[in-house]
């Protein structure tokens, strides 16, 4: 009780200090040359999967590193800018997922924020539940059936809620290419997009009948798929893009449904990783990598992630750059073949 009261008294002062100050102080605690690390996030939402994964990261890796880490949800552009101006001591690093380089390829972030301008840190976790969903009474139950339905109903369109330059656009692009290859351009051209942002906006667009299919996640959308949910908001999963099924859910993967791009099954595991300034001090990046390796072995980290169906997914520092670059190259071939966003929107 005393501790809580003490926390209550000091919290406003701390809060105002945290709100007003952004840069980390130099110190010599915790094996690195900083005593506080600001972890800027590529998303400004505190409800989306980036914040949830970042929270697990800052709590557990911060503990291993013995440094106070604070997740700061400021959005992609502001986060890149903060990283651009960051000192090489590790006082500011960025935490985001594959959208960090996809958004540059899609042109929704300037080229100067491309992957080559940063040091890629360790990969730490993944959300295997990125999924396509539709209304519970839609006349199709998976993505292949959706494409068949589109082929059979020549006057119809299939509208997807998509965020321009986001992972939703990438997954839609893969589906579009496969539909075009399998059923022809006439069918594929009836795939349309409804540009929108957050998961909440996508759900609303589905419920109000403005779109047919949305891109959500098992963690965020599972509740709308349960039997006792009112029909108006009831949804069903059509597919996940991850390479493996999620335990406990009967949702097929793209690969299982035979959705391919250039003869290769399309899989996309949405992975979360760290980006650091290009000239980051070796002492910091090594210490951070060691801390991630240590934290990832603890049950606490895995347990926190599993609350929302996320998983630990460690790729160490010395392999992460190659790993992410290979992934980028593979995904960029999809983007290169896909139609322009504006064409899909028209």
């Amino acid at each position, binding site marked *: *009780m005393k501790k*809580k009261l003490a*926390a*209550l008294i000091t*919290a*406003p002062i701390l*809060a*105002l200090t945290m*709100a*007003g100050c*952004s*840069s980390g102080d130099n110190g010599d605690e915790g094996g690195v040359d900083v005593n506080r690390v600001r972890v800027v996030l590529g998303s400004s*939402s*505190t*409800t989306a999967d980036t*914040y*949830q994964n970042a*929270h697990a990261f800052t709590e557990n890796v911060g503990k291993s590193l013995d440094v106070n880490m*604070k*997740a700061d*949800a*400021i*959005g992609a*552009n*502001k986060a890149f*800018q903060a990283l651009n101006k960051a000192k090489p001591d590790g006082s500011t690093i960025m935490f985001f997922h594959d959208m960090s380089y996809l958004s540059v390829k*899609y*042109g*929704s*972030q*300037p080229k100067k924020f491309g992957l080559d301008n940063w040091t890629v840190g360790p990969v730490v976790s993944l959300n295997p539940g990125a999924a396509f969903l539709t209304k519970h009474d839609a006349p199709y139950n998976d993505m292949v059936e959706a494409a068949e339905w589109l082929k059979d109903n020549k006057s119809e369109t299939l509208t997807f809620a998509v965020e*321009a*330059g986001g992972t939703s656009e990438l997954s839609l692009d893969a589906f579009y290419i496969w539909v075009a290859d399998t059923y022809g351009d006439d069918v594929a051209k009836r795939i349309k997009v*409804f*540009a*929108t*942002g957050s998961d*909440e*906006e996508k*759900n*609303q*667009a589905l*419920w*109000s*009948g*403005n779109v047919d299919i949305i891109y959500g996640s098992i963690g*965020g959308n*599972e*509740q*709308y798929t*349960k039997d*006792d*949910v009112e029909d*108006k*908001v009831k949804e069903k999963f059509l597919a996940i893009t991850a390479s493996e099924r999620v335990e406990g859910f009967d949702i097929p993967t793209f690969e299982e449904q035979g959705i391919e791009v250039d003869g290769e099954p399309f899989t996309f595991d949405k992975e979360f990783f760290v980006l650091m300034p290009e000239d980051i001090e070796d002492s910091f990046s090594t210490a951070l990598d060691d801390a991630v390796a240590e934290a990832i072995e603890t049950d606490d980290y895995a347990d926190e992630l599993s*609350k*929302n169906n996320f998983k630990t997914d460690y790729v160490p520092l010395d392999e992460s750059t190659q790993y992410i670059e290979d992934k980028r190259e593979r995904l960029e071939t999809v983007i290169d073949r896909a139609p322009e*966003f*504006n064409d899909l*929107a028209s």
Partner: protein
Amino acid sequence: MELFEMFTPMAFVLVVFGVFVGIIFGSIPGLTATMALAVFLPLTFGMDLGEGLALLIGLYVGGISGGMIPAALLKIPGTPSSVATTFDAYPMAQKGFAEKALKIGIVASVIGGIISLVVLYFFAPVLGTVAINFTPVEKFLIILFALTIIASISEKSMLSGIFSGMLGVFVSLIGVFPTNNELRMVPSFLEDYLWDGFSLLPVLIGLFGISEILRNSEQGLKTDKSKKVTLKKAKTDPEARFSLKAFNGQTVNTIRSSFIGTILGILPGVGGSAASLMSYSQAKNFSKQPQKLGEGSREGIIASEASNNGLTGGAMVPLLSLGIPGDSTTAVLLGAFVLQGIQVGPLFIGDNPDLWNGMIIALLFANIVMFLMMFTSIRYFARIIEIPKHVLFPIILVMCVVGSFAINNGVMFDVWTALIFGVLGFVFMKIGIQITTFLIGFILGRDLESNFLDSMQASGGDLFVFFTRSPIDWVLWALIIGSVVFGIMSNRKNSRSAPDAATDSAAV
């Protein structure tokens, strides 16, 4: 989970603490209820769920209510949803009735908060699904309806008011285009700074706070001793003293404004500032003495404060019944649920009756605490007006700068934004651009655009969708037209009865 097992005595202490800190955040220009929640969110992870929620709910209610303090005393809205509070609370405070203005606002706030709480408790699941029927078409019309306030509050020339409002909308569109991420109206050397456009709060602080300081400085900073005398006389002067008689004849206004706040809170994507502006506009349209609104009228304060606190319960409706946050503050609250592993959505109330009841108790308790805390201590806040200007203004200026810097965790460009818009506001006054209507356009511009674009996307570009989608549209059009006509009529009446009144927007 037993109710009182979850809602422990410590939780009650945390509500009190949350309300206290929330009021502080709300009362410092630049620090908002949303920021208070975001800053304290990590602190709640080490607490039990009930205690964590109690703290966040306290912060929420305190943060929204605290916004009225700088709005009334300094003419700087503490939160965007207290913009309309400045219209009457500040002139009333300038007449020496600061304590009275604040107490009217506090009572209106608690009534608005409790009415919205009742709606939340009894109708949350039903209203949650009704909200789905409000597509971007209806949301666009509602924001258009809120914009009709420009007709009501335009001074002297309505054309100048409309121009100022349009200019505000135009400036709000600077930055990245939401549907395809293309930048617009941004010179290349400012790309880094204006990617997301100008932040709302620095603009608001600049236009209301800094420009007002510049205007006062131009006139000289001599302390107006009459105000000091008037404030001290409040104990003996019945006109300066608050009593519940201030609410005589205001029942309809109070209830209507509370419901406007609640209903607009239920509709995600509409926002608190639209609620308070719409309530204000309707208060003026239905007032028997509309010419008095804007000059220190209790009607205006009640309308704004009842509606912005009505929003607190309203915004919880879609959060708890659909898992969709009603505003940016409840979005942070949703984050707290998610990180605790609790899914807020259509099954939440049925699956978590104790948690649901606990939240209602916390909200009710937070409203009561807010009322007691603010009502008993507001006289000390009101004394701000007694501080000589040459002492007060530098403090306000520092608060404006610190608040602007803190908004996005230390972005210097936000400080420049506040200063630039401070100077612009001063220039606007000189050349006849109305600051208030400019700001209203700026606040509502982005939502207006995004709902318009969504409507166009969904309808394939058919403009008739705004008339044909549902019968709700016709009701909204009738309200929009009615509000504009009332606004024009009251504006004309004002111009005829007081041709020399209100020379610039600073005298709102």
